[in-house]
């Protein structure tokens, strides 16, 4: 039926595309959208420059399982991740066919290649059930743009993929055909019970019965030749497995026993059969043993195979993997500071970033940090009036230091020392700083990094004061000298520079090592100590950090 329908559809399509112009319609070069590949609405609609994330469903399912039109679904939430575009791949009409069907593995391979080619980035795949095996097949296919599709994929996340096949399906098939059952006896008993209870029922566990009569029902049996023939997973490709695991209490009268079902169709061992990206994420539902009842078979709970994509734990793991895998370290480029103006020499550089498309807004924001700083200093200098002609020129310059910069496709953060000296003057050291989301250039403020601004700032102030007083000998000597000469109240004026105010900590950068804080010349010690910088490790700030900070820290590069 499917082949016949596909042929008819092809003829119809050929007729229909001829109608408007009499010429075949040319596919747009920058679009990968097809009947099978659809984009999930999100804030970053442009594929070019984004990290494409593709969700592929499993057997007897469709792309609707990901809830692409719901902002709270796994796909909807993924679409909100900075810098990614989210796509669903659908093969519902063929979802009872094996992954080698032209509309499944080969078509998915073409979709992955197109997304990678147009975006210029590697693709992240999120696959449910047999979608993981379709991915395994697709990765080994040739990429029309060169190499294999595997080289275009950054990471694969699987949900309940039966790497070794489905034990439950295998046992039920054997019972159905009267062939030898090789599973443990308790599993066989449970499978018989399910077959009995599923008479007249179609959802939950009973959905498996729809698969059994099809060819794919055989292909998905444990140790099937179809699975054995799949190409091996590419070595070095990160694959994160997620799985469900549940025990069921199986009783009759006053007697009973317990059976471990994994996620139902897929055992834990099979669902975690190929994990190369750290330990698998397993959703356990074994704490309270569920009794196998007809009601349970129809609504088996969050650990069940088809419920995994709706569980908060699994969704969080998938989103975290997407965020991490989509992050790319950006290249740093130094550009000469804009000329400060006549009567001044300008000698520094400011930071620009490169490496992915769509960085114009961020680079404009980085440039604006220097432009705004120059404008503020110029305005300040104007208050001094016209410099005396006998003195030399003033100067301006900023000098980014790699230790106080992080730049990734998720966030760019910079703390740059700068100096602006009035003609004939001195002591113009200060900081320029900014933290921006990529690609929006939305600025991240210090308070937004703390769950409670009051507590966070107080903790930061305490940590910075301790660190500076313990390590900066210039500050130590300055405080000691003024205390000895004028008393502790005089020293307090400088120590107040550590007080937990937003102004005292306005200059900061988020770096992989921690929160870098720039203390202005003259803020906590005399001018001779110059600009002061200290970095507070994230581990020390962890109790005070906001969810935003927790999200951004893994993205720092």
């Amino acid at each position: 039926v499917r082949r016949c329908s596909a042929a008819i559809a092809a003829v119809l399509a050929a007729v229909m595309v001829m109608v408007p112009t009499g010429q075949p319609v040319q596919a747009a070069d920058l679009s990968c959208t097809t009947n099978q590949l659809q984009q999930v609405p999100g804030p970053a609609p442009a594929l070019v420059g984004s990290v494409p994330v593709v969700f592929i469903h499993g057997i007897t399912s469709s792309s609707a399982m990901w809830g692409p039109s719901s902002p709270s679904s796994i796909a909807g939430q993924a679409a909100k991740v900075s810098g990614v575009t989210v796509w669903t791949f659908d093969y519902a009409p063929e979802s009872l066919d094996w992954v080698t069907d032209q509309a499944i593995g080969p078509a998915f391979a073409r979709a992955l290649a197109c997304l990678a080619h147009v975006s210029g980035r590697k693709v992240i795949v999120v696959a449910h059930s047999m979608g993981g095996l379709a991915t395994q097949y697709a990765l080994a296919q040739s990429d029309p743009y060169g190499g294999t599709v595997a080289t275009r994929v950054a990471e694969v996340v699987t949900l309940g993929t039966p790497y070794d096949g489905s034990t439950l399906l295998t046992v039920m098939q054997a019972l159905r055909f009267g062939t030898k059952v090789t599973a443990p006896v308790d599993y066989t008993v449970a499978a018989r019970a399910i077959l009995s209870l599923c008479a007249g029922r179609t959802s939950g566990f009973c959905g498996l019965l729809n698969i059994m009569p099809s060819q794919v029902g055989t292909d998905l049996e444990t140790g099937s030749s179809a699975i054995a023939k799949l190409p091996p997973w590419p070595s070095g490709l990160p694959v994160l497995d997620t799985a469900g695991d549940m025990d069921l209490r199986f009783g009759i009268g006053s007697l009973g026993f317990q059976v471990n079902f994994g996620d139902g169709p897929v055992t834990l061992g099979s669902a975690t059969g190929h994990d190369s990206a750290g330990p698998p994420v397993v959703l356990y539902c074994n704490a309270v043993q569920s009794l196998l009842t007809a009601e349970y078979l129809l609504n088996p709970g969050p650990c069940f195979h088809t419920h995994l994509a709706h569980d908060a734990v699994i969704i969080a793991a998938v989103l975290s993997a997407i965020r991490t895998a989509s992050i790319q370290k950006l290249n740093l480029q130094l550009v000469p500071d804009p000329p400060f103006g006549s009567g001044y020499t300008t000698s520094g550089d400011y930071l620009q970033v490169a490496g992915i498309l769509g960085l114009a807004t961020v680079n404009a924001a980085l440039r604006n940090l220097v432009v705004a700083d120059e404008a503020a200093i110029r305005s300040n200098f104007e208050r001094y009036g016209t410099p005396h002609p006998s003195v030399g020129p003033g100067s301006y310059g900023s000098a980014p230091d790699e230790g106080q910069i992080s730049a990734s496709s998720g966030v760019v953060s910079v703390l740059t020392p700068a100096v602006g000296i009035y003609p004939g003057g001195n002591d113009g050291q200060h900081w320029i700083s900014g933290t921006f989301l990529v690609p929006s250039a939305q600025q991240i403020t210090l308070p937004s990094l703390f769950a409670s601004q009051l507590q966070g700032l107080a903790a930061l102030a305490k940590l910075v004061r301790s660190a500076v007083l313990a390590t900066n000998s210039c500050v130590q000597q300055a405080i000691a000298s003024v205390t000895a000469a004028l008393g502790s109240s005089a020293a307090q004026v400088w120590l107040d520079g550590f007080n937990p105010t937003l102004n005292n900590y306005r200059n900061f950068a988020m770096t992989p090592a921690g929160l870098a804080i720039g203390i202005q010349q003259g803020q906590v010690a005399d001018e001779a100590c110059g600009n002061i910088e200290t970095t507070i490790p994230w581990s020390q700030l962890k109790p005070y950090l906001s969810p935003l900070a927790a999200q951004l820290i893994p993205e720092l590069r």
Partner: protein
Amino acid sequence: MRTKVIIVGAVGALAVLAVAGMLIVPHFSRASVSTAVRVASAPRSAPPGAVSAVHVLVSAKGRDVLAPELNAALGPGKLFPAGTTFIVQPGSWHQAGAYANVSGTLRLPGQAPEQAEIGLMDSHGRWLVTFEGQL
């Protein structure tokens, strides 16, 4: 206009072909479909052999009608106390291939009656119990 008529005609003919194809092309690729699972289209009465098995299940000889693997897996012990009854609910019989279920009222001595379901399998013409549980 002529082009439109031809296209409409072609679409109609192809639609007819598609429907015909759906009717005549076998869906299942596995050779044997004699035990294919199907959803019962309408409630039926339980066969006498199945009703008999259900009654034996709650009797002292209950283990005689258990599927052999189930009997082995449960370990020793009595399934139900003496005096337990199970009344089959008319029209609750569902069968798919060799497997079936039926529901009814389980009454244990001294306890309130509860709705329960019993799973069965046709083993060479003899109905054996595969499951009993709350409905």
